[in-house]
């Protein structure tokens, strides 16, 4: 293992993945790395395999070949249960939309990952206080944290709660899948400011996926999906 492997937050090496079933397709990622604390934008159209790549990085799906190192640990070698636990400890996820459990309070939504990640929970200290620090920084009123269920919040508020959930307990890597697509231009800028600021505070590495190239200047680096991955489609036999 070279120095770069240790220094890099995320390394995908000769990764090969196949979806079975009717929409069978394969994804190959020969070499993709992100350095620690780096903010990377991954650009790609819908259907370019972005979501599949993210679920590989998060360890929800396992590749047939290759290795995926997060913070120096090869997730591919972990057993499924250990991988789930590793994800809970190391990775905070923000989705495109429908990020929150609609029936739970925003507070419970934020605290949810800690239930599966004891180390992260310990790091967070007083979890509720830590959550409030985050939501204060993200500009969410304290009153709405406990009372309302998450589905009463506006889309913008929901996305900020989702960021708080991804950041609580300072996970090593933040993975965001088109988190701004449901927001208008003004809110997008605002949202990114908050996201970057909080990642900097937590010292987390950020990988964000989008199809919007206009966001690229705000990141340390932007990568095109087609530059790092090859997609093979085959019609159903």
């Amino acid at each position, binding site marked *: 293992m070279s120095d770069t492997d240790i220094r890099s937050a995320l390394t995908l090496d000769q990764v090969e993945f196949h979806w079975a079933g009717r929409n069978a397709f394969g994804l190959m990622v020969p070499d993709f790395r992100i350095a620690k604390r780096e903010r990377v934008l991954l650009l790609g159209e819908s259907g370019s395999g972005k979501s599949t790549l993210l*679920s590989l990085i998060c360890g*929800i799906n396992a590749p047939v070949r290759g290795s995926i190192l997060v913070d120096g640990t090869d997730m591919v070698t972990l057993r499924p249960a250990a991988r*789930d636990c590793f994800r809970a400890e190391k990775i905070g996820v923000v*989705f495109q939309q429908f*990020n929150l*459990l609609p*029936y*739970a309070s925003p507070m419970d939504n934020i605290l949810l990952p800690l239930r*599966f*990640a004891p180390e992260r929970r310990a790091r967070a200290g007083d979890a509720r206080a830590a959550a409030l620090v985050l939501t204060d920084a993200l500009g969410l009123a304290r009153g709405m944290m406990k009372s309302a269920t998450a589905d009463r919040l506006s889309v913008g508020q929901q996305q900020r709660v989702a960021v708080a959930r991804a950041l609580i307990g300072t996970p090593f890597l933040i993975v965001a899948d088109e988190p701004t697509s449901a927001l208008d231009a003004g809110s997008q800028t605002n949202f990114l400011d908050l996201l970057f600021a909080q990642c900097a505070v937590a010292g987390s590495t950020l990988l964000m996926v989008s199809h919007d190239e206009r966001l690229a200047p705000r990141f340390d680096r932007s990568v095109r999906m087609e530059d790092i991955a090859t997609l093979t489609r085959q019609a159903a036999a």
Partner: protein
Amino acid sequence: MILLRLALRSLIARRLTVGLTIFAVALSVALFLGVEKVRTGAKASFGDTISDTDLIVGGRSGSVQLLLYSVFRIGNATNNVSWESYLDIAARPEVDWIVPISLGDSHRQFRVMGTTAEYFERYRYRSGRPLEFDEGRAFDDLFDAVIGADVAATLGYDVDDPLVVAHGLASFANHDNQPFRVAGILAKSGTPVDRTVIVSLEAIEAIHVDWQGGAQIPGQTTSPDKIRAMELTPGAITAAMIGVKSRLQIFALQRSMNQYPEEPLMAVLPGVALQELWGIVGIAETALVAVSGMVVATALLGMAAMIFSGLNERRREMAILRAVGARPLTIMGLLMLEAVLMAAVAAVLGISLLYMGLWIMRPYVDAAFGLYLPIEPLSLREGLVVVAVILAAAATSLFPALRAYRLSLGDGMTVRN
């Protein structure tokens, strides 16, 4: 317990469908326990019909038949016991007391039974409770009658009201010439006595003075005063209740009566015959339990269907849980937890419904069917039924939970909906 809180919140968020499902399961639980209560109540009530009588002797037929006509006043005796045999048995050293019973006539829809005044003392029910008089007292005149509580209530009789006995059971031939007087009304006992008109053995003879071969002798009427002067020893009785001096003698006495040389007799132990009879009634009981069991199963299947139908809308939710680190097994567990919570709430609701129903229905059931339903805590068996329902809920939720498991494995973080 954030997961428990989430499961609860998720259920509350879907309160309409969840509420209806819970209500269905609760109703089925209440029904099942209600059937169970009625069943045990009926069985106890049934077993309590007669106590403290060691043997019942009658003409030879079947033990259940003898019990049916002598105690329950259902059906008819095929053979009688001659008065000589009766005296013979009464004279035996083992016999402590003996009460004759003579059946065959009726008043309106109620059976008339001839017996001795000792009957009111010897007939016991519900482990030794004696009959009590609501009004009046036992007969002391030849044409006195004592009526059961149901007879009084149905026909609106009071003490001193007249009462005409009909010959046979469904007959238009009345014993008009010898009207009776209501001497006493018995308190409700929940036994067949409630539906019986009791007269003295001599009275049964008296009303048949002018009768021969089941029909009135034309033109012949004997006045009550003349009858009073007559010798009214019965020729035969229908059956007799016997108490022995020592319980050890019961079987010897039973055997000797079953082998009685002068005429074909039969003696039964009421407890054994009751059990035998319940064995026949028990088929209906089993059917009842089976049907209410089906209702519980149906309600649980409904719940499984409800969880199934919700799965597709909840794939997003499961993807979120997976993304924050929940294992597929955790998601499966969460769904089963929801089912168990629903079943537990349903069980509590069902038990409350049961006791509310019992509390409301009890006086009515007691009055209408003579069925005493005690309001007491759940028996061990009933408690086990409740536990079984909750376990069955967990088991049935296994199917939708397994599907959720597969969905969450397959979907991962990407849900296309």
